[in-house]
């Protein structure tokens, strides 16, 4: 069993005011924090001091980069805007590269309608792949998000908890397996 806890931050992927995704992100943090040997924290893209007058690793923020370096997996909570992902999330993700390689990523889609972010998840997967992240086959889809949480952000439909449990089981399995690979398996060493 690894001696270090798994580090799994949750990225809240939108700066939009009144965002319901914040409730989903806090819920994911709570569920992760309840797991043994897991460290988590909420990272809000709206609070990162990353300038927008340049792009990519040129505007890397040292604190965010160190958090990505320490991470074993990421949970991305992402609302669907015009079938795509929020531009600021892409801008933030693009500031790092080596920090993501061979680490697990799970996506929590959020939408006001019935698709639960299904289209943003499909659009985000190729981006994560190019960044070197390994996406899992479980998603969480918060359909009709306006009716899933009360005004204090409490989950109103506990049926989501079972889905989150399956999502996190898979994510943490991948995180642990990929950590072993990163640290113990040399590329090209088996050919």
């Amino acid at each position, binding site marked *: 069993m690894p001696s270090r806890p798994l580090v799994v931050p949750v990225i809240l992927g939108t700066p939009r005011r009144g965002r319901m995704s914040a409730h989903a992100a806090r819920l994911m943090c709570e569920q992760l924090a309840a797991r043994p040997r897991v460290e988590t924290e909420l990272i809000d893209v709206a609070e990162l001091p990353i300038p927008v007058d340049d792009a990519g690793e040129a505007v890397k923020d040292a604190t965010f980069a160190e958090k990505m370096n320490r991470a074993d997996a990421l949970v991305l909570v992402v609302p669907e805007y015009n079938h795509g992902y929020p531009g600021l999330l892409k801008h933030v993700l693009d500031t790092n*590269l080596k920090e993501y390689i061979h680490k697990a990523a799970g996506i929590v889609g959020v939408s006001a309608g019935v698709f639960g972010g299904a289209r943003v998840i499909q659009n985000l997967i190729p981006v994560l792949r190019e960044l070197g992240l390994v996406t899992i086959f479980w998603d969480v889809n918060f359909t009709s998000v306006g009716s899933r949480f009360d005004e204090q952000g409490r989950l109103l439909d506990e049926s989501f908890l079972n889905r989150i449990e399956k999502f996190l089981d898979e994510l943490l399995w991948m995180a642990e397996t990929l950590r072993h690979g*990163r640290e113990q398996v040399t590329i090209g060493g088996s050919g």
Partner: protein
Amino acid sequence: MSTPPMRCGKCGGEMNHQADKLVHPVTAAEVAAMTPALDGVIEAVFACPACGWIDARRADEPPALGR
């Protein structure tokens, strides 16, 4: 010719070469070295078995043919 081992910037341990990632070129020399088959430059990515730290450097050698 083997490349020297990568040392962890956090704990000093020897790092594991865990990935070769194709990335966009930065310098003019890297742009000039690009080929139609290798549309970018290779960055060797390392992880520290002791503390988990990640680091990277440009690969010194192109990948061997047939790999």
